[in-house]
């Protein structure tokens, strides 16, 4: 029985496929996907919601069981608890299936990329068509989109000098433009930090004063001048705690870390509550309780 199941699983979800069979699998996956979508859309809304709730529940159940079930037989003294070896095997099976489930999520997500691209085309196409203000930026979008896409295909699909040329052009577009523009945006943060710090450090209340003082100590403690300022204090003994670099270390490691962990605990409990509501379809508001 398990052999038959194993063979069916291997045929439906093979580890790797080569040659023309790849196209058979791609075609079959598309047909099954479209059929599933059509079936879902033609289901009466009342039942459609139940299907969505059931799929959400099963998805959550998969990951919960994978995490919660023991992956080793439970021992009491020298003996294993009856049935626990089977549970452990089942849990191990779920863990092995995790990459495939993650692949499904990625495949479904990649379909939405098409919708996102469609939205971009719609917006920028309208701007170019109607020649609205800044329409040439939208034209630049189309040019760069098709140029980098074409070069991406050509560099992998061609051979010889044409491939070299397309690879070089792709490198210019990606390394020369995309990455440099990314770095430019990132480097702007340095300037924004200064202006934000100026506003944040204006001492308007006791709390702001405390923050200003603490920030000053930490900044000084992290640079050589700060160490020089309190270098006259001994390196060990009770007074060493007053050296700026030690105060900085203490502030960052104790009060700061304690507060961060407190926030993290709160966030984790909030995350759990939200996950639970979505998993059990208890979530209300926005689109969760609408008619599908």
């Amino acid at each position, binding site marked *: 029985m398990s052999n038959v199941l194993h063979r069916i699983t291997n045929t439906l979800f093979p580890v790797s496929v080569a040659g023309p069979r790849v196209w058979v699998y791609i075609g079959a996956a598309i047909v099954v996907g479209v059929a599933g979508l059509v079936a879902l859309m033609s289901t009466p809304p009342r039942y459609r919601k139940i299907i969505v709730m059931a799929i959400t529940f099963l998805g959550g159940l998969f990951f919960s069981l994978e995490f919660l079930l*023991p992956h080793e037989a439970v021992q009491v003294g020298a003996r294993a608890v009856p049935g626990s070896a089977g549970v452990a095997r089942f849990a191990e099976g779920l863990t092995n299936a995790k990459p495939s489930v993650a692949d499904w999520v990625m495949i479904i997500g990649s379909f939405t990329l098409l919708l*996102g691209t469609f939205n971009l085309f719609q917006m920028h196409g309208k701007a170019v068509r109607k020649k609205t203000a800044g329409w040439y930026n939208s034209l630049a979008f189309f040019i760069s989109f098709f140029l980098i896409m074409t070069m991406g295909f050509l560099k992998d699909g061609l051979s010889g000098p044409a491939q070299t040329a397309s690879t070089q052009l792709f490198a210019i577009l990606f390394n020369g433009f995309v990455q440099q523009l990314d770095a430019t945006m990132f480097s702007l943060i340095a300037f924004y930090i200064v202006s*934000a710090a100026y506003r*944040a450090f204006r001492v308007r209340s006791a709390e702001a004063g405390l923050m200003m003082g603490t920030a000053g100590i930490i900044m000084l403690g992290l640079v050589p001048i700060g160490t020089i300022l309190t270098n006259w204090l001994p390196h060990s003994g009770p007074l060493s705690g007053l050296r700026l670099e030690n105060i900085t270390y203490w502030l960052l490691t104790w009060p700061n870390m304690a507060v961060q962990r407190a*926030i993290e*605990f709160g966030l984790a409990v909030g995350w759990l*509550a939200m996950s*639970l509501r979505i998993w059990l379809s208890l979530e209300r508001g926005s*689109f969760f309780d609408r008619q599908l």
Partner: protein
Amino acid sequence: MGRMTEFANPATYVVEGLLVFLILWKILSARRGRELFIRRIPGLSVLDEAVGRATEMGRPMLYAPGMSGLDIVGLQSMAIMSHVIKRAAAYSTRVIVPLCSPVLYTVAEEVAKDAYATAGVPELFIPEDIRYLTDQQFAWASGVVGIQHREKIATAFYFGAYAAEALILAENGQMVGAIQVAGTPSIIQIPFFLAACDYTIIGDEYYAASAYLSREPTLLGSLVGQDYGKLVMIGLVLIGVVGVTLAALETRYHWLHGVNDVFQNCFLRYFPGRR
């Protein structure tokens, strides 16, 4: 120890079981009509003021869900966005939503459409206002900055997962004179939002936002359950502090050895980590 951190151990069953029980118990009691109190959260109470300002100025609002994808953070952001759009729709004020996740874009479009319909003005929904920009972090940030300056936004909401782009957006929002409200579970970005925004909600207030805004019994119950859950966490921390202190005192008071042994075997070993 490897598997003890990778999968659930007995402590996980007890703590998670207790938290799940508390949250579900409070949800059920709230659904039965029990009155629940939640404190005022200034960052969320200011929502009407922020919408009103944009309406008075006749300028649009920006709702940026950050780098959130279709996960718990992103879905919570969508829940908050739904409330923002409903309030904005009541005053016929535009809300522009730039997204960096194509998956979340499809959800955001549905949520926005639904919010306008619920507010009774489905005709105000402009599909172009829900924009997918790119999934590249800084390209998305520059796109949003462009929108802030071109559209001269009056109000900006930043609710979602944020990284280094948080300060870029908040500072540009300041430049255009927008009133800014932010909330993120990304702890490292909270100080930047605090420095640059008018109102910032901190930590688990992010997950309290939808309950606070909608006052829906299920969500309120869940929120109160969360607070009980936090009490459990505080209790666990206190037990841990006592245990670790006793372990440190063992070198001076040898009679503590037995107590520490029991504590180590029954409690601490189920909380693997740096000690």
